[in-house]
């Protein structure tokens, strides 16, 4: 089509020849951007596969023991319990109950994630029996002084990122050399995110996230999250250990997950601010 048109246009003036060049060039760009788009679509498709592979659990309870390592190797530990509810037409809801250190024991943190826009968050302070709505724009702040930012542990909705640069390659350290991953970039849509981009490593067989490289606002490679020891509970894969290594300050946080319970029959109402005072 384009060729036919250009042959017709060859007889035209100089100006039209420029026009033709422009047309050809813009056609070229169009094809290129379609290619880029399809790659983005592919990367997003993988993200959707990851999301789909981890859907249908309804609700989930799990314990976590978090160990925070300073650069010199000294460590402190925290214990939390988390309870999440899958919400089909919006983001998931989650409750985090603090068990250790003891001065924050009984504090409950409630999040309603949304597909679009800011999350809603409440904090229950047991000493005053006070429930406080808190600002959720602090997505990049550290969770309990650890190397995990709030956004690293919040529900991973597909619509919260744009995607590109899908490729297939070795998963790399610390995984076996022959292990192949889908690797793609994702870019947080939310401007309050602490990252410009994240490189996600997904295993090709089960669509589980094995590794994420985090690039901060200055585009330095700030952190790497590795999810180890995957185990299958019913239809769902869960990593028993998450390691977040900060490359800039040499600190590290290790989370050991345990005691999973799925599909206990929790309701939306169990994840509302009024429910916070009865958790323990």
């Amino acid at each position, binding site marked *: 089509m384009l060729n036919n048109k250009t042959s017709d246009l060859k007889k035209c003036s100089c100006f039209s020849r420029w026009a033709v060049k422009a047309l050809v060039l813009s056609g070229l760009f169009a094809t290129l951007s379609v290619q880029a788009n399809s790659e983005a679509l592919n990367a997003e498709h993988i993200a959707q596969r990851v999301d789909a592979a981890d859907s249908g659990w309804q609700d989930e309870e799990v314990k976590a023991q978090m160990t*925070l390592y*300073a650069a010199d190797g000294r460590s*402190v*530990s925290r214990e939390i319990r988390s309870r999440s509810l899958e919400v089909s037409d919006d983001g998931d809801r989650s409750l985090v109950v603090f068990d*250790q*250190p*003891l*001065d*924050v*024991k*009984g504090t409950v943190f409630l999040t309603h994630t949304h597909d679009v826009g*800011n999350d*809603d968050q409440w904090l229950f302070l*047991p000493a*005053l*029996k*006070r*429930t*406080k*709505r*808190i*600002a*959720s*724009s*602090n997505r*990049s*702040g*550290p969770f309990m*002084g650890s190397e995990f930012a709030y956004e690293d542990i919040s529900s991973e909705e597909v619509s919260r990122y744009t995607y590109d640069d899908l490729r297939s390659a070795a998963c790399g350290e610390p995984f076996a050399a022959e292990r192949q991953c889908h690797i793609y970039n994702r870019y947080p849509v939310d401007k*309050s995110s*602490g990252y410009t981009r994240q490189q996600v490593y997904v295993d090709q067989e089960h669509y589980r996230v094995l590794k994420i490289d985090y690039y901060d606002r200055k585009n330095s490679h700030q952190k790497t999250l590795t999810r180890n020891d995957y185990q299958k509970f019913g239809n769902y894969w869960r990593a028993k250990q998450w390691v977040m290594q900060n490359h800039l300050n040499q600190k590290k946080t290790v989370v050991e997950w345990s005691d999973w319970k799925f599909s206990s029959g929790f309701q939306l*109402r169990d994840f*509302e*601010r*009024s429910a916070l*005072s*009865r958790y*323990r």
Partner: protein
Amino acid sequence: MKVMRYLPLLFLPFILCLAGSAAGQGWQHKGKLVPEWRYFFESGKTPQALDHSQVSLRAEVEFDWQSKNAKQVIRFTPYLRLDAEDSERSHLDIRELNVQFREGDWQLSVGINKLYWGVSESRHLVDIINQTDNLDDIDGEDKLGQPMIALSYHQDWGILEAFYLPVFREQKFPGPKGRFSPNVPLTSEAIYKTASGKHHKDIALRYSHTLGDFDIGTYWFDGIDRQPTFTQIPNSDLWAPTYTSIKQVALDLQYTHEAWLWKLEALWREGQGNDFHAFVGGFEYTYYQVASGRFDLGVLIEYLYDGRDGRDERDSQAPITLFQNDLFVGMRMGFHDTQNTALLAGVMSDLGGEERSLMLEFERRMSPRWFMAVEGRFFQHGRVSSPQREFDGDSFLTLSVSRYF
């Protein structure tokens, strides 16, 4: 000391707990023991009042039991303070002793309970259910347990709650050796200006809901005002705490958007002379990850208005308030360290006078079981002329170390 009589009560939870764990049920407990040292910068106003230093110890344990389906909950929280100087400040209280049942959209709670209503930081204006524990602190955040029957009904359009409060709890005052004590001698018998005396049954109805960025709560209260006025007994030097019945409608509202929290608490009250209204309104804005992510910095500004009559109780039927036309400016620093270090500082200024008070709070975790806090209150210029309170000269610093178990 009279509290010694109650000491055996403290063992009750341990017995309950043992019985519970023996039966393999879901008992849990948590507690803390807090030695506290308070230092007053000026010596006491009366010869009996303690000089500078006040040492005390407080203990709180919370026991709770939950049925397997979490529909029934039992909670028991005894509280004890022992004060080395002021025996009146030594006291035992049951903060909680209640049973909760949940079925479908309904929840019923029977027993002694503690709850909190409100959003603002500088004054807890609309919080009314629990009596303030004056003996512990003057910030109005420590509360006595309140016996109640509470029924709540949850729907998508919000939560309706009804409260029946069969027993009224009087405010307690420090003794002559203590600080913040009334500067007139008080009788132990309070006067009740209510239809049925101290046996008046309080009632409250509350509606609360979350609508997107708005959290809203409103209630109607018919009962005895928690704060007393003072009446001089004829032909005597003694004064009696005097409780009046009031009707009150109140609102608490918060709008949360990005790093902004906009807050409003307001109330309308009748029963104490002329009807009046009062409010606290303002915002908290947080700058996140300041100084290369070392801490968050929050700025708080709240304006306080209270329209009750008179600045002197002698010409007012409403309890005196310090917050008739005041501005609170504060800041909060939350460090991102593993010790959870936090600093809160604020100034409350009377826009119509010279009164000013400064508050300072610093806290830091020392280990998984130890936590320390420093708290200061500094008062400038004669606060109010009230037989109850005159904080001028009672500026202090408190150091406390909590041991959790």
